[in-house]
């Protein structure tokens, strides 16, 4: 019987911050102190507060330590685990309360969240099936196989109001119903874990922290629609997630929870993992299935929809990782429980990956209907360094920017679309006054141009032309006519592209045009970048009043553009300057300014 548990985050963020070494150090240290049978060392999935990683939690006290290094391990063992004294200096500091917080559950970051899809993330060891079972794991599958008819399962999912968490928000129960209605011996269940949006890592965290929840839900889906084979399409860029999925799959098969005659009930369901090699378009459902089949990942026109003619031409359902992560709990706790959370048309919760100019970078799960203000200020801890919030980007390259005026709009599928963005898979990138909105639009367009598969012309050529317009604007060479033409092109691409990727590609441009047209016009009419980002429109200058003539900037300048005599003000030659900004970062006196 263990007296204490040390939970060490094994998500990708903390792993890159050496959490594995910390884990090994704990095991070594505990062995030295003869505590290896008293204290359990458990690697878990993401706790959510990636910004202050590596993070560990010591139970039963629930002490939440952040920014831990291997050098701290000895102190935690000797002070906390032997003598029961918390190591104050390592406790997480809550910016709101400006004090050390003992437990993760006491932080503002946690208190305002509702964890459904992330229920087990950061609580259990994802590589130990027994821990998952201890948290009621596979009970939903047992319930479905022993007590429910397939149609009853679909009815529960329908009644819960669950909508697809991949972004488009199609009702999950209806999708299952379509596939169940098809008469065919062979049907497939697929899981979309090809999370390609820049800044999104929700699906990765679920797979890393709670892989069995996805496997169990897929087996339930198989039972509901009459399928005996499933595929998980996961991107190869997620090595930890792939490895944990493989471990989970092996354990589930050993326990007879997947495979032939599951738990002696006569139901067969097997799963296979397919690796994607990083093409963004493979997150689109028809392209994903083409890729699973072994072909080049390209979309095809719909209809026929996958529920009718999907993988290998058979009826197929394809759901996102986070959608599956909700299924087991809906089965166990009931549709009413799930639909009691959220707004009228968007039920349940949504996981967001918070990134960009925000204090608490990390993973949060909120009930639908929470406002952007609550997410950014209360949970995210606000914009750091006293800067002003400008906009939040949701939905990745398919989404748009939500400006500060919409701070109090409740977040759900329909509201986000009405304000020109979309839910997307759940990346949320926060921008402050130092971000140029034209530059942001350009960044996403560059991504789409790179990732366009090339099958249809509006996307392949249209997005490239769009990027050229943006290039012209950010270098100050565009006219107002260009701006109008660009807007027209956006609508043209939206109307004519083959798949969702192309149809939504102009969204970043359209939404920034809608809310930040003044910034576009400043670039065109005044040849000025208000946020001082676009290199073609800014100049670095030295304030002679503040310059002490130390020559630090001059020595750092890679092109030798800064000259002057020691102890008298230096000057920058604008013809030579490449606007790398290194001088500004070097100057200790704040003498270098951008204009």
């Amino acid at each position, binding site marked *: *019987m*263990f*007296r*204490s*548990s040390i*939970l060490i985050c094994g998500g990708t963020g903390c792993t890159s911050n050496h959490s594995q070494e910390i884990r090994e150090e704990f095991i070594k240290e505990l062995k030295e102190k003869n505590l290896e049978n*008293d204290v*359990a060392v458990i690697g878990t999935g993401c706790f959510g507060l990636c910004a202050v990683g590596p993070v560990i*939690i010591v*139970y*039963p*006290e*629930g002490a939440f330590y952040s920014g831990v290094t291997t050098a701290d391990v000895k102190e935690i063992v000797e002070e906390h*685990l*032997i*003598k*029961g*004294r918390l190591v104050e200096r390592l406790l997480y500091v809550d910016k709101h309360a400006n004090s050390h917080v003992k*437990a*993760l*559950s006491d932080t503002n970051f946690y208190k305002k969240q509702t964890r459904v899809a992330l229920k087990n993330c950061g*609580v*259990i060891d994802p590589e130990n099936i*027994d*821990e998952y*079972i*201890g*948290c*009621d*794991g*596979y*009970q939903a599958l*047992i319930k479905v196989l*022993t007590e429910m008819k397939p149609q009853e399962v679909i009815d529960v999912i329908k009644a819960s109001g669950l909508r697809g968490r991949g972004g488009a928000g199609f009702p999950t129960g209806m999708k299952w119903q379509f596939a169940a209605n098809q008469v065919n011996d062979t049907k497939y269940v697929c899981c979309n874990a090809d999370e390609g949006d820049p800044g999104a890592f929700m699906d990765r965290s679920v797979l890393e922290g709670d892989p069995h929840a996805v496997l169990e839900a897929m087996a339930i889906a198989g039972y509901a629609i009459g399928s005996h084979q499933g595929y998980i399409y996961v991107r190869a860029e997620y090595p930890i997630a792939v490895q944990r999925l493989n471990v989970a799959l092996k354990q589930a098969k050993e*326990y*007879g*929870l997947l495979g032939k005659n599951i*738990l*002696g009930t006569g139901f067969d369901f097997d799963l296979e993992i397919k690796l994607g090699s990083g093409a963004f378009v493979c997150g689109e459902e028809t392209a994903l299935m083409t890729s699973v089949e072994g072909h080049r990942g390209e979309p095809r026109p719909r209809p026929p929809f996958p529920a009718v003619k999907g993988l290998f031409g058979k009826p197929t359902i394809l759901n996102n990782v986070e959608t599956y992560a909700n299924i087991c709990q809906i089965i166990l706790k009931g549709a009413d429980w799930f639909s009691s959370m959220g707004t009228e048309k968007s039920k349940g919760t949504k996981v967001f990956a918070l990134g960009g100019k925000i204090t608490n970078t990390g993973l949060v799960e909120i009930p639908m209907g929470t406002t952007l203000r609550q997410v950014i200020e209360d949970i995210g801890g606000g914009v750091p360094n006293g800067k002003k919030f400008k906009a939040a980007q949701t939905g990745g390259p398919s989404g748009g920017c939500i400006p500060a005026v919409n701070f109090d709009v409740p977040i759900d599928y329909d509201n986000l679309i009405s304000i020109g963005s979309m839910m997307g898979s759940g990346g949320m990138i926060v921008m402050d006054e130092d971000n140029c909105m034209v530059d942001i639009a350009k960044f996403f367009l560059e991504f789409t141009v790179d990732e366009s598969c090339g099958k249809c012309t509006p996307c392949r050529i249209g997005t490239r032309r769009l990027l050229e317009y943006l290039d012209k604007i950010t270098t100050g060479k565009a006219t107002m006519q260009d701006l109008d033409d660009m807007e027209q092109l956006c609508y043209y691409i939206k109307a004519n592209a083959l798949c969702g990727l192309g149809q939504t590609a102009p969204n970043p441009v359209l939404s920034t045009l809608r809310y930040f047209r003044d910034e576009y016009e400043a670039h065109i009419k005044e040849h000025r970048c208000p946020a001082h980002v676009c290199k073609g429109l800014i100049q670095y200058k030295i304030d002679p009043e503040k310059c002490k003539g130390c020559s630090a900037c001059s020595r750092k300048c890679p092109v030798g553009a800064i000259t002057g005599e020691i102890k008298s003000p230096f000057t920058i030659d604008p013809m030579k300057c490449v606007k790398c900004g290194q001088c500004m970062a070097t100057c200790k006196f704040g003498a270098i300014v951008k204009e």
Partner: protein
Amino acid sequence: MKSIAEINAIRDKMQSQIKLRDNSKTEETHIVIGMGTCGIKAGAVAVFNAFVDEVALKQIAGVKVMRSGCMGKCDLEPMVEVTVPGKEKVTYINVDEKKAKEIIEKHILNGKAIDAYLMK
């Protein structure tokens, strides 16, 4: 391959382990053992283990056994604080393994503090 009964058995076994990690409930009884140097010297480790084992053995729900540092009266160690929801905190002194079992039996399970062992 496992049967449904075996899966349920694993669940019951693991639940007591995982319950340790639940910090959300405020309505639970806390047994806190002073584990400063003074406490450890006076035998607090054995007392702590006795409490953990008893709670697990009797499968008592809603009870958390925790360590704390020196409670300030080193000559009275091992000291044990028991907080039952809705009641005032009481402190036991000079606790040993035998007393620990008694405290679980009489105080935790039957709700009657053992006056003879309390700090005066």
